[in-house]
């Protein structure tokens, strides 16, 4: 889950570098929203891992 956030950041970098300006911005915003969601999951412990 966390790796997808960093992969999306790499995608923003690559999209921005190769001229996909608006797509890079869209991925940036969506990624930040997803990161906020991951933070909420962590904060609420809503995903309980059973060993």
């Amino acid at each position, binding site marked *: *889950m*966390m*790796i997808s*956030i*960093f*992969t999306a*950041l*790499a995608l*923003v*970098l690559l999209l*921005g*570098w190769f001229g996909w*300006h608006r797509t*890079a*911005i869209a991925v*940036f*915003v969506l990624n*930040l929203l997803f*990161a*906020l969601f*991951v*933070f909420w999951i*962590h*904060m609420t412990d809503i*995903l309980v*891992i059973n060993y």
Partner: protein
Amino acid sequence: MVSLVRNLNALLIVIYGLVISAAFGIQVFAGEVPCPLCYLQRVGMISVCLGVFLNLVYGVRVFHYGLSLIGAVFGGIISTRQILLHLCPGTTPFGEPVFGISLYTWAFFTFVSSVIFISILLFLYRHEQEEAPKSYNWFQKFALFLLLFIIFGNILSVGLQCGLGYCE
């Protein structure tokens, strides 16, 4: 003025690049593995860098500064959460303090500082800065390389630590 502003944008990337590189050093040499909140703070830092990265590539836009500010606010929220988790007397701080202050508190300082720095860059904003650059000087190239390094370094770190799943 245009080159000064572009170099200041690159400076923000370099500062965060060095901060995250230092975090890599602590992770590798001191053995302090980052927690999920630590990774999310790194996401905030890289998000700040990506906003000003778009300034370097496409020319300065107020919108790009807005993206960086959102990244800084996000990082500030995460670091505040981690500070509050360890605030009560008797609770042990996470990780070894650096110069007496925990890393997540230092992270909070960097996010506040970046908001102030971006505010100064907005004061310096002029319309002629919107022109896309034709080339990059050595400092801007170094900033871009450092950004590449910290992003892919974190992908490697998260991949080795957490795999594809949830970071515990």
